[in-house]
């Protein structure tokens, strides 16, 4: 009974561990590391929110909530989505509160994917997308995007990737890891392609509020897209609430009911204290959110400038809190770059290939760090890149 590998679910067995894992082990053992490898805000949750949670505990809010979440929270979410993104949902059947967007994402896939269904996954993308599609019994079909196209998936690419088995399209803009945002016109073209082949669109818009150039376009707000789209949103990034694990899904009542069915049998409900905290965030912390977004935007400009100065081509990220520079000039693969940068200069970034093959040749740098940390990290990184350039140039001169 010791050989588990033969007994494991083959789908699970074949899922590769996240590329981030090995690097995490390496980085967490070192001292004095400045990390730009973190996928979460450097702000602590606003005190108002934390205090509201403590107060909820004091008043004895320690029980289950309705499966779909506290009615007051669902109402606040529906109100917020309407105000911020221009889409109207009925809080009584079209909004579901989940344990982070991660759960909402999993529920959405499991609710719609039948064995063998294909799901289009534009890459580079968040590390969970492909494994979650596979775990839901679907087949992820990667649609690679490049620096040249600004890491924005095109309608043409979607059309070419569609087969008779294609069931759904995943979209995540602003993007983790690239920071790319999609302009309304390009999203509208994608919407047309999705409608022509009757695709379901799972829109992970967790970074929506962190849009710096222009306004975020909610995919569900495009004409005719509301009932075809499962909108995923949450509190982690905008309100600096990653550890609270509160997200939500909004969409047509039928799909939300199906997702709720899975949710009630697997999760039951999201934690009540975190739901109370989320309600406080939506009601009273919009100014705090804007303040944090401003700070990210300041740092974003520092980051773009720093990569320019060290000669790493960097596409200008319009959203999220990541930059995704091209490290080709160093002659290193993204894993080599990240590993050597960590060893030689104690700066942690994430190799781009952790987000799909099309991320190779890039690294993800999070600017959810203080100006002081960023300044020091870029000083070190500049030194590292200059050294690598000399080595590469030396080799070229020797005909190597």
């Amino acid at each position: 009974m010791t050989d588990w590998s033969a007994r494991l679910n083959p789908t699970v067995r074949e899922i590769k561990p996240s590329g981030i894992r090995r690097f995490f082990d390496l980085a967490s053992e070192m001292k004095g590391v400045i990390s730009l490898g973190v996928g979460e805000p450097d702000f602590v949750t606003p005190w108002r929110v934390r205090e509201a949670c403590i107060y909820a505990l004091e008043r004895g809010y320690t029980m289950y909530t309705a499966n779909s979440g506290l009615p007051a929270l669902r109402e606040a979410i529906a109100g917020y989505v309407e105000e911020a993104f221009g889409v109207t949902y009925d809080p009584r059947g079209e909004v579901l509160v989940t344990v982070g967007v991660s759960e909402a994402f999993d529920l959405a896939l499991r609710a719609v994917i039948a064995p063998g269904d294909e799901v289009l996954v534009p890459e580079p993308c968040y590390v969970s997308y492909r494994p979650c599609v596979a775990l839901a019994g679907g087949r992820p079909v990667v649609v690679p995007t490049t620096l040249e196209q600004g890491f924005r998936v095109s309608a043409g690419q979607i059309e070419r990737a569609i087969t008779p088995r294609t069931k759904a399209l995943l979209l995540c803009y602003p993007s983790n890891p690239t920071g790319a945002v999609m302009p309304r016109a390009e999203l509208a073209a994608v919407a047309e392609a999705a409608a022509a082949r009757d695709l379901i669109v799972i829109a992970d818009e967790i970074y929506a509020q962190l849009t710096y150039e222009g306004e975020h376009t909610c995919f569900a707000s495009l004409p005719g897209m509301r009932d075809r789209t499962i909108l995923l949103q949450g509190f982690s990034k905008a309100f600096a609430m990653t550890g609270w694990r509160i997200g939500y899904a909004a969409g047509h009542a039928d799909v939300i009911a199906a997702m709720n069915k899975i949710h009630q049998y697997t999760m039951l409900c999201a934690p009540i204290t975190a739901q109370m905290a989320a309600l406080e965030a939506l009601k009273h912390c919009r100014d705090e959110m804007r303040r944090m977004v401003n700070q990210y935007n300041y740092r974003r400009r520092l980051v773009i400038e720093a990569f320019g100065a060290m000669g790493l081509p960097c596409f200008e990220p319009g959203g999220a809190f990541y930059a995704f520079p091209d490290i080709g000039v160093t002659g290193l693969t993204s894993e080599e770059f990240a590993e050597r940068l960590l060893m030689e200069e104690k700066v942690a970034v994430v190799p781009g290939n952790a987000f799909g093959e099309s991320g190779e040749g890039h690294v993800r740098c999070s600017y959810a760090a203080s100006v002081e940390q960023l300044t020091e990290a870029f000083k070190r990184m500049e030194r590292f890149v200059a050294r690598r350039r000399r080595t590469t140039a030396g080799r070229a001169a020797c005909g190597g």
Partner: protein
Amino acid sequence: MNADRRLEILELLANDARLTARQIAVMLGEPEEEVCAAIAELEANHTILAYRTLINWDKAGRSRVLALIEVRVTPQREVGFQAIAERVGRFPEVKTLYLMSGAFDLAVLVEGKTMQEVAFFVATKLAPLEGVTSTTSHFVLQTFKEEGVIVEDGEGDHRLVVSP
């Protein structure tokens, strides 16, 4: 440069006076010369009063005594509270000075090396001033938060070094 941008510059400097004009220019996406000119103007017209460092003096090993003195005064004809406030404010022992609504008129934050020093200042300088009718001294026992900064803040960065 528009007024909103100037306010942004001030907010950035209020939080971190060590930011260089170049950094601020990049952060705001404005030309460096314009940021320099705006800062120079804000300094010249005394919008920017000073660049200071917030220090936890207890930790630095220099003891100091702070007291909040409530002062009642008789406002003078034509100049109101202005003349007396100016006289009080010129003493270097006075760190902060506000005109208040309510039960007293001036809130005076006084700093000294010892309690006696502060008491002596109040008794010999502040209380005898013409127009001052009464003073009430409250000594500060501990500073928890100053200028928006929590003094002993246990909130470090607890994030994982690398996360997706």
